[in-house]
């Protein structure tokens, strides 16, 4: 839903900010550890989805989680809260 202005002529006349995905850039670059979902263990409880501070987890049609690595900051809340430990944190670059 990015309708952000590209040139100065498209800028709003008042100090009005425009809703944009990634207003602070791709925040996935802040991450040190990456959450990886084991779909065979996942019970579709959607707890990871509701507790994700970044909204980087999407609830799919069958309620299983899909992580958007462009914006996940790697805080690890999903991994800590998962009742069946289906999400593990793995170091980036390994």
């Amino acid at each position, binding site marked *: 839903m990015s309708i952000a202005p590209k040139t100065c002529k498209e800028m709003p006349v008042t100090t*009005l*900010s425009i809703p944009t995905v990634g207003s602070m850039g*791709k925040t996935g670059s802040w991450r040190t550890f990456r959450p990886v979902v084991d779909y065979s263990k996942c019970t579709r409880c959607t707890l990871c989805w*509701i507790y994700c501070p*970044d*909204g980087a987890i999407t609830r799919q049609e069958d309620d299983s989680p899909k992580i958007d690595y462009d914006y996940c*900051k*790697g*805080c690890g*809340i999903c991994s800590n809260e998962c009742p069946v430990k289906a999400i593990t944190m793995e170091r980036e670059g390994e």
Partner: protein
Amino acid sequence: MAGSIKELSKEEYLLKGHGACAGCSLAISLRLLFKALGNKIVMVVPACCTSVIPGPYPYTSLAVPVQNMLFEATGATASGVVAAFHRRGIKDVTVVGWAGDGGTVDIGIQALSGAAERGTDFIYICYDNEAYGNTGMQRSGATPYGAWTTTTPTGKKERKKDTPFIMAAHRIPYIATACSSYPIDFINKLRKAKEIEGTKYIHILAPCPTGWRYDTSKTVEIGRLAVQTGMWVLFEIENGKFKFNPPSNRLIDKAKRRPVKEYLTLQGRFRNLTEDDIERIQKWVDEDWERYCKLASNQYV
């Protein structure tokens, strides 16, 4: 009323790529706010973390109308917005004042008190991370006893203000406390507040990994521990009637509450506490619970 997480909308109005720290519970609370009330709201936000995390001009990650305002003016600005909607005959928009603990407990309390006294029809939400987090953790009136902040390097010597009861003294129709670790409780309280006319006040505990000095993955766990140890109590005061909410209603018996030490030792900001301090905090928590139990059984104190 929402019964389970799966009934909640998949729509997101806090867009991805915002500037909150990793593991921020304020961002969880904002998502829950939008899940409860949708996008038919106008937010009034003073100087606080929420005025920073949407990102730099001309972008924002909040996909609802937001009025950024001065630190002390949340209540007054919300009153103006409500008056404008009233004059135009628009009735289906909820006005939400969304401020941090500094902007509520210290700086914004006069405007909030004025709005409550006038009976302005809006929901005021204070998300309480117990310090001025946005400027680098300075002490606020909501910082608890013994907590480290940059301005109390050896631990704060005073106790936390009891803001929900300051608001109760205004005799407003609805006051509640919540925590982002209990999403259904928070969402039900917001939906209830939306249906009530008059000033509604909700105080959320917002654990802050950056300022409280704990691992980012523990945010939800810390919030849950705060409730289970009785350091944070989930209750609502509806038309002067005090009521505990689950799971706090099961903790009235002292033996069922976990010792406060479990909550305190997990956080780096309490590392200076001595055994005496911990005992003192435990005593205060138990005294507070006695007072709440009397209120719940209608023996007003």
